Structure formats: structure tokens, C-alpha cells
């Protein structure tokens, strides 16, 4: 019996899961304008990485990226959003620490700090007021954050589980591209491109709706050792 037990029977787990999946897809679909953008894809995406036999250049670049513990510097970001007649431009500093996450500090056009981790996304304004941008329960958003963080860290192995990997260039000037393997993920991320020389110099994310976020890094500092500065200070400084 769901004995009382059977009654205790049982809260409809399936219902929650259905909801979860449906909203995951809803979330994805809200960005899905057109996936038939293959024709406008950068040339990089004609150069897939064969996982069983990757090129020597790819192996070299990915092993360089893999060893990075801390990655920090300045950024400039441009977002092109459908429906807005002008691009949203911002700049500031960033600090990325594995495995903690990303501390994103916008200084122009206003002050705003953002902490992105696997678990949460917290924003702090110039008055020190903190706001959780998404509830910790937002599984869909968390999935997106994980991809974003993996891209930021250049974690090719982690990304390759969900994305087909593309590579062009050499250690001196390279481009890494990622396209979702599943149509579900493709509905909210069309593709990701990382480019760099010795380290990552820039990142482009095109979402399923066609909005483009282009980030360029400068004054980049890379550390392969654990940092002395605790990451928790990101929002308290």
C-alpha cells in the first residue's frame, strides 16, 4: 500500500520532473529564433576536432588552458540584442578562479559586481546591495552558468561532452569553437568561440535567439598555482 505509506503514497515526482523538463525547454525555446544559421557560421566550424585523433596544435592549446588556476584582467563587452537599436557596451575587470567561479566587475557605464558560480549568480550594486539574480533552485539557469564557466575556463574536455569541438590556428593564434550536440542545448546556445594566443584573448557567445555577446580581454594575468586571495572576497571588497 502506499500504505499510508502507499498513500504516503507518494508525491508526484513525475510532475515536478515534467515541469522541470518543460521549462528547460521553454527557456531554451524563448531564445530560439532560428537555428538554421549554419550558412552564417564562422569558417572555424568547418574544422571539427576528431576526439579520437586530435591535432597536435589542439592538444597543445587545450593542455595550456587546462593548467590555469586563476585568470584575471580587464574586459570590454559588447552585447547585440534583438529589438534594441544600439549595442550594450560595458567594461571592467574580472577574476576567474577554478573551481570557485567568476567575479565580474563592471565599471562602465556603471558600477556593478557579479559573482557566477556553479550554484548561484549574485549581483552587487554601487550601494553594496546584493541581489540573487536567479533563485538557487533555477536548475535551468544553473545549467547555463556551468556552460558559461566551462567556456570561460577553456575546459575543452568538459565542454566536449555537450558540444562538438572545432579548432583552427596554432599555439600562437588559435580559435576554439563549440556547437551543441543536442538540439535541446542548441535552442539556447547557438555557438561559442574562444580565441587567443598564449592565453584566452576573447570570447563570443551567440545564443539561440541570435543575440551576440562579444568579450575581449586585456592585461590578462594567468596563474597556475592556487591563489592566496580568497574568492569569497569578490563581493565583499
Amino acid at each position, binding site marked *: 500500500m502506499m500504505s499510508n505509506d*502507499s498513500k504516503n503514497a507518494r508525491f508526484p515526482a513525475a510532475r515536478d520532473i515534467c515541469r522541470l523538463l518543460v*521549462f528547460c525547454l521553454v527557456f531554451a525555446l524563448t531564445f530560439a529564433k532560428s537555428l538554421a544559421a549554419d550558412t552564417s557560421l564562422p569558417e572555424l566550424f568547418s574544422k571539427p576536432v576528431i576526439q579520437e585523433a586530435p591535432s597536435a596544435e589542439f592538444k597543445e592549446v587545450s593542455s595550456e588552458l587546462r593548467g590555469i588556476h586563476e585568470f584575471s584582467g580587464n574586459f570590454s563587452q559588447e552585447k547585440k540584442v534583438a529589438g534594441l537599436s544600439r549595442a550594450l557596451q560595458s567594461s571592467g575587470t574580472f577574476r576567474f578562479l577554478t573551481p570557485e567561479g567568476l567575479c565580474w566587475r563592471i565599471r562602465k*557605464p556603471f558600477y556593478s559586481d557579479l559573482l557566477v558560480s556553479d550554484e548561484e549568480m549574485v549581483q552587487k550594486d554601487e550601494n553594496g546591495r546584493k541581489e540573487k539574480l536567479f533563485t538557487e533552485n533555477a536548475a535551468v539557469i544553473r545549467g547555463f552558468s556551468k556552460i*558559461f564557466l566551462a567556456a570561460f575556463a577553456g575546459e575543452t574536455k568538459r565542454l566536449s561532452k555537450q558540444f562538438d569541438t572545432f579548432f583552427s590556428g596554432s599555439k600562437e593564434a588559435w580559435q576554439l569553437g563549440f556547437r551543441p550536440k543536442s538540439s535541446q542545448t542548441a535552442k539556447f546556445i547557438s555557438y561559442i568561440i574562444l580565441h587567443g594566443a598564449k592565453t584566452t584573448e576573447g570570447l563570443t557567445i551567440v545564443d539561440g535567439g541570435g543575440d551576440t555577446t562579444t568579450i575581449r580581454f586585456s592585461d590578462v594575468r594567468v596563474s597556475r598555482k592556487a591563489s592566496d586571495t580568497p574568492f569569497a572576497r569578490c563581493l565583499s571588497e
Partner: protein
Amino acid sequence: MTPFRPWNKGTKRAAQLWLLLCAITLCILTALFHKGLVLESSVISLLPEEEQGTALGQVMEHFVEYAGAHLVIGVGDPDEERALAAGQALRSVLSVSTHFDTSQTKTSDIQDSLISLFAPYKHQLPSASWQEITAGKSDLPALLRSNEKKLYLPTAAWHTRFIARDPLLMLPDFLQRYLAITKNLRVRDGQALFQSEGKTFVVLPVALRGNPFDAEFQRLALADLHYAEEKTREAFPGVEIPWSGILRFAADGAERMQGEVSRIGLCSLAIVTLLLFLCFRSLSYLAHMFLPLVIGVLFAFTYTHLIFGNLHWITLGFGASLIGISVDYTYHYFCDLSAHTTEEQTGVLSRIAPGLTLGALSSILGFAGLATAPLPGLRQMAVFGCIGLSAAYLSVLCIFPRVVKRSSFFADSSLLIQAEKLISRMQSPGSANPVRLVLLASLVTIALGFSSIQSNDDIRLLQEAPAHLVKIDSFLRRNLGQSDIASFIMVEGRSLQDVLERQETLAPILEKQRNTGNISGFEQLSTFLPSKKLQKDIRESVRNALSQHEKEVLQYLERLGLDEGHFADIKGDASSDGLLSYQEWRSSKIGDMLKHLEILKTDKGYVACVFLKEIKDESALVNATSQLAGIQFINRADHISEALQRYRAQSVRAISISYCLAFLLLCFRYGPRFGPCIIVTPLVAALSTISILALLQVPLTLFHVVATMLVLGVGIDYAIFLHENRETQGATFIAVVLSALTTMASFGLLALSSSGVLQYIGKTVLLGILLCVALSPVVLLIPSTTADREPRSGEK
């Protein structure tokens, strides 16, 4: 020698008619089998009937119907890729089954539904940011600044999607409520996953295409599921596949009860057969003995299923005890034949019919007494018992005169002689009389034990779910962040809007409980559908804010690259008078997905549930919510236990009345000399049984109490038979002892059942009947005169 022909034309017609009825019943049973038997194994059926039709009853009925239609299957492996592949393999195999629906809702439909439902009302939705404004904690310029910052974030995809259509971003903020599912889950490629014990589990929600309590559906669905499990394990050795749902508990309960019913039934049958064989030593005769039993079970099974639309396994287990009682009529028939010469045997029916009828009536009344407790489960047992005994009794009266042709039944006549000697000893005066000693011991037991009776009506004593299933269910529930339905809050109101408004009043209190850690979350309809009052309030607040901060809004739009037309659109929207209704929400795809939160109509108004997660301190919740109108915290176990306690008290009163009525009836039939002597047998036996249980520190429950009704119904027969057949005391006493032994064998086996209900009834009846048979010769202590046995005037 005159041939033994105890029948005449009348009995022949009765036998034909009865056999015709048996044939019709058999046809009905075949049709029932063909249609599919519904065998329940849930304690739901034992729930107080009072709940049905009440708000709580409706809530539970709605929930069970909804929850019963789903299963959750996890597929776990240390390697996430392997877990995903195994999950996909399991889904593929299951998708072929006609008993499961593994398809997911069409996302394009859901997307359209969600956006088209809420977009027209976006400026009256209680987004978190706007609620701060209405609470005076923030203002519109601050909201605009916050929105702008969100758009600049590298992870702002969720908000940028809406900015051109909803510059205040009220819609995406509100829709976040729909995205908030559970902490442990994450999504990969549209697939829900959670991590536990070093493994990644893929979660597959599956809908059932049938009734989980339908025995045939259970069998077929489980076969498909086990096949899918097997195929997945073959392809992916070592994967873990935990699954849970009402189907699993129902099937497990049914399987266990089926095994138990078979064991009890077979053992009971074996003991009865052995006893009969020892007494009568004739196989052909055994066949006669079981005829009433088979017919009794046939009638009871068929008509109880027809009346209730299902049969509970507990009823079948209880029904197995009928074996012990229904053979009583056969014993008495045979014993009477054995005690008379061949010439006298023609009068068997006229001799035993009055006693047999009174005995059958009292037993049927005893079973009917079970129905005094307003529990559908017990009522079903009562109906099963009444029909079964009636059919067995009628079979003896209608068929036996046609089929029983032997004139002597006892294999050993010394048995009769010994029985008569024993009866003589029991009637002897003096303190060494064993009947007097038993009576005295019983009275002492009552005196000692009655004052120490303690009761316990906790429904948890009846819990039967096996630990391993509960463990799997808890594992999935914990990781999926499921609410616990053992405790929830019920919100009632005069109207639909009343319920929503009361939930909105409740929300901040529950938020506080969450913040203090007393609960980890809650789920209620008003989170997803604001009341009309709240919608109006927010729209008014948006209108006021726009007129106060027009300049700031225009600047904000300009900075983003949106033209002034957007401002006019917002103002126009905020001035409209349309409100999102419950009906509109309910008829959308979203309403269908959140069906468990829907508002139900009751006789007095409307009701909805608030589901709570991981409650730590129930009393704090009760204190926090007790002052709110229409809001009631429900702990299902406590609620049912309180009801059981009430019903126990009611049953004690009902049973006392039954004993009084039986006493008056006996006094009317047997006069003031013998009436009290006959009633004293079941009365002292029942009180002694309760006292013995008390001395053994067994707490008294409703089920012990209703079982004393059976002690009256069955045990009273013994004294009646002994008194009615004083001329054949020896044979009658043998019949009484045989009856008691078979009844005790049946109920004794019930006492070994894993079902608490059957166990309590079994123990009580076992002890009660033992004492009844020991006390039944009390009636023989008073010598009978000829006048006592003469029929009353007008009685034939």
C-alpha cells in the same frame, strides 16, 4: 430399513433454486474476471469515511488520483555519459509499451501557452522586484537601474529575450517562479539529472496509461517495466535503476497480501480438513463438508466486488477466516444425523434449523457489527462475511438434504461416549466443576486486567510498506525535492479568489518559516497565479509609478535604444481592466501541468493544498498558521489516528448496544433463566480477552474492539447449540468443539498476518473463541425442564 430421504418436494425446489443462483453467480464472477478484477492493497480504503465529501477527503482523493498516474525512474551510473545513454535505452524500450507514456509535453505548445497566457497581463504580475516597490522597499527608478544592470551581464540571455516587448522586465521576473524547481536537479540536453553517492542519476518521468490498483494492469505494466530494466542492465551492466510511485507500492502490497491470503487460506483449509478427517475419516464426506464453503466464498467474492467495485486484499485475508466459521453449519448437520437413528434422521432439518438459523443470524450480526466503524475497509469485510456466511448457511439447508446420504458419520463412537461423559462432569455440582473454574478465572482476569487497559490508535502501527521500498522512495523524493504529503496545509474559501487571497496571506508566513529553516520550501497555487485583487493592486501601483517617474522611464528607454512608443504601450497596458482568471489559467497547458495545486469545489466552497518540504517542527507551523481564517495544518497520520480514536469510542457504544439487544432477544426466545446464561458466554469471553491483552500490555485499538463483535456473533452460537440440543449433548458438544477449533485455526492464522488490521482482529477472535468454547457449557449448569423446551404459543 427405511432409506434415508430427508427431503421432500419443497426441499427439492429449494435446492434447484439455490443451484440456479449459484450458476448465475458463477457467470457473474466469470464476467468480472473477464472485465478485470480490481484488488486494492492500499490503506486508503481504510480511511475514515467521514473524510469523503469533506474538503480533506476531496483533497486526498484528488491527490491520489493524480499521483497514482505517474512513476519516477532514475538511472544512475558513476559515468554521466553512461547514465544518459542507459536512461535513453530504458526510455526507448518503455516507449514501445502500451502501458506507459514516456513522451514529453510538446515544448512549442507549452512555450506558446506560457507566453500567450501571461504576456497580456505582464503589468499586473507580482514579480519579486515589483513586490518590493508595492511594499515600499524600492521604487521604479531603482527597478530600472537594476534591470539595466541585468542586461549588461554576460549571462543575461533570459532578460534580453524580453526587453523589447517588456521593458520593465516584469514578465521574465515573474516567470522565474516557474523555473524554480528544485535545488539538487540540473538540466543537460533537456534531461533532468542529479548527483548522489558518487553517481549521476538521469530522471525519467513516466505516466501510466491505466489504474495502478487494477490487478491486470499491474501485472502487465510491471512485466513491461521489468523487461525494460533487464534490457537496460544487459546493455549497461552495473547501472542502478531506482523507481517509485503508487504502482510500485500497490503492486508490492498486492503481492505480499496475495501470498499471505494464499498461506492463510491453505493452512486454514489444511487444518479444517485434518480435523474433519480425524473425526469422520471419509474423503467423500470431506467433499460434502466443503461445498458450503466454496459456495460461500463464491457468493462473497462476487457480490462484494459488485457492490464496492473492488476488493481489498485485507478483505480477502479476513475472508479466509470464513473457512473456519462456515463449516460450523455442516458440523451441526452431521452431528445431529450421527446422534439419531436412521428413522429419526428424516427430521434433521426441523430439528437443527431453528438453532442453525439463530446461530447464522448471530454470526451475520457479528460481522455486520464490523460496519459500525465508519471505515470503508471494515465495511467491505463485514459485507464479505455476511454474504459468505449467508450463502454457506443456505447451502447447508438447501443442498444437504439432497446430497448427504450417510446415516452415521463419526468414525469412532467412543468419541461420542467420551463427550457425553465430559458434559456430565461439567454439569456436576461442586467447586471442581471445570466450567465453574473457567468462569471464575475469567472473572478474576477481568477484575485484574480491565483497569489496566491502555489504548493506542496511531495509524502508524498499521504501516506496512517494506523498508526497502520506503528507502528508494525517500531517496528519489529527497533528490528531486519532493514535497511530503503526510503533512500539508489546507486552504479553504468561499470562492476561488478567496482561496487565492488566503494563500497570498499565508505566503509571507511560510517564507518566514523557510528563512528560519523550519521548512525547506513550499508550493501553492498563488505563487503561479496571483489573485484578482493582487493583480489590481499591482496594476494600480504600476500606473502610479509611471505617472510619478515618467521622465526616468523615458530616459531608461532611450539609453537602451527603445523608442517612446514603448512608454505608451506600458501605460496603455497598465490602464487596461482585464484580469487573469483562474479558469483561464486552469484551461492552459500550464494549469494542466500544475494540476496538483488546483482549487477543488466542495459542498461549502473551495479548497486547495499547500505542499511543504522537509518540515522540521510541525508545532511551529501550527502555531504560525492557526490564527489565519480558512487555513488548517493537516498531519495525515495524526488526523487519521484521532478519527480512529473517535471511532473506537463509537464502536464500544455500538457493541454494548448489540450485546444488550442480543440479551433481550435471548431472553425472549429462551426466557429469563437461560437468556442470561447464554449471553454470559460471549460477554465474559470478550471482556476477558480485552483484559488478557491489557495484562499482556497490548494497547487497545479500534480493530480489537470491533473484533469483540465477532466474538459475540460466533461465540454465542456455541451456547445456543448446546442449549437447543440438550438431548444430544455429546454430539452437539463435539460439533461445538470442532467449530471452535476450525474458527480458532482460521483466526489464529490471521494473528500471524503482517497486516496490523488482520493481526489485531485475529488475536482478539482467537482468544475470544477459545474462552467462548470453554464457557459455553455454563448454560448446561442450569437444568432444563420440559416446559423450557416446549415451543411458545404460536411457535412451530
